[in-house]
């Protein structure tokens, strides 16, 4: 199966790889997927509490190239967005941007789930 140029670019040059301090109250962590399914995404956001803007986003992904690209793209999109804007990101946006084939749509769903999980975690920690 051929990968799109954008998937290849994210795979070869993944953006924002890394980890933020889970204990930091301004950091939200989302971990979705399962090793036995072949995909685990960890996505983290660091939010400025006074503006509600995501200042940093980091990811680590165990999964196929499309899963890596979906989470890498998600971190690019998250930076500079407000928490509410972030929640508006849909998996179909990722599918369109990366030209994912039907068999890889679950990768984009997982990325959307990871965004939601990270924001949820931040909201819980910050008491919103």
């Amino acid at each position: 199966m051929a990968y799109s140029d954008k998937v290849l670019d994210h795979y070869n040059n993944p953006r924002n790889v890394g980890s933020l301090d889970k204990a930091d109250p301004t950091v939200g962590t989302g971990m979705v997927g399962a090793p036995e399914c072949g995909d685990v995404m960890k996505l983290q956001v660091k939010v400025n509490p006074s503006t509600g803007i995501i200042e940093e986003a980091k990811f680590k992904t165990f999964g196929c190239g499309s899963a890596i690209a979906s989470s890498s793209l998600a971190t690019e999109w998250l930076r500079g967005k407000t928490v509410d804007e972030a929640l508006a990101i849909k998996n179909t946006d990722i599918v369109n941007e990366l030209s994912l084939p039907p068999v890889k749509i679950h990768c984009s769903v997982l990325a959307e789930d990871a965004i939601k999980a990270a924001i949820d975690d931040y909201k819980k920690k910050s008491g919103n």
Partner: protein
Amino acid sequence: MKFPIYMDYHATTPVDPRVFEAMKPYFTELFGNPASRNHSFGWAAEDAVEKGRKQIASLIGANSKEIVFTSGATESNNLAIKGVAQMYAERGNHIITAATEHKATLDTCKHLEKEGFRVTYLAVQANGLIDLNQLREAITDKTILISIMYANNEIGVVQPIAEIGKLAKERGVLFHTDAVQAAGKIPVNVIADNIDLLSISGHKIYGPKGVGALYVRRKGPRVQLTAQIDGGGHERGMRSGTLNVPGIVGLGEACAIAQAEMAEESKRMAYLRDKLKDRLLGALDECYINGTMESRLPNNLNISFAFVEGESLLMGINDIAVSSGSACTSATLEPSYVLKALGAGDDLAHSSIRFGIGRFNTEEEVDYVAGKVIDVVQKLRELSPLYEMHKEGIDLTKVQWTAH
């Protein structure tokens, strides 16, 4: 070095140039039908087919009269298993096979189950080998056939064929083995190992695709089969259809070369395979070899690189042709059933790569592959949340995952 590097010789092999040369005349000037008994075109074709038959028989210690030509090993397995089941249905309705067999065997058995046959699928041990005691216990007075592959196509483990053959003979059960990966790579002898039926394929041993053979024992016992393809009664009535003369010439030549060069070639394969293994295991932690190294084809290496998903690994080594046990593209996301049968967790099955080294690989290629795989695994582990958790001392089996 020429790229991409081919290291997937269990999937298929190129035709050896010597084999191709031998085949060439049989497409054009020597195009006769071996069934044409009344002119020289037919006689020439028949001579070529009989030479091929002898070459194949010689490789496996059989008599040339015991070789039936087919379109490939899938057909050979179908003919052996369905042919025995139908021919001996009055004697019994029970077949024993193993969970790690090729689909050509498993799906044939499943087909027979629908027709009322009972099939036992033996589990394998963690090392990939069947347990002979389990096999012994599975045999009943209704058992008519044991079908166990010689060497596995994914993990290369070589089953205890001589012991299985002995047991089958003692109990009066026919023994079929799918020897597609073993024949031509390691010594195979149907007499010494009490094999009654044996499947072989051209394109796994540097012969052409679309041709295979089934060895059918003629003496002690004389094995009979119900034909699966009816027609002109070719191949002693067991497989009708005009013979694929160039294919048979190619399969025969491939067998002759394999037999002549096996001792030397298998040594070279084992050297290259072990070099690859030692370099990978030397540079990378948390790698697991799937299947025993004690009883294994010399050219096979199947490794799980924990915390790295197989398809992403293949994507990083896209100038190397190998296979992964991870099937992330399928709707079910099911990893290799062979690796699962070993009891490896699904996570490790998703992380596996099969290297199949072959006749035309060079040491330079093996060095390149080792270096490239090491680089990509290291890069992907930097990206892997699982590797990070492992390094933090978290037991991944105790984590509550959100399965999707």
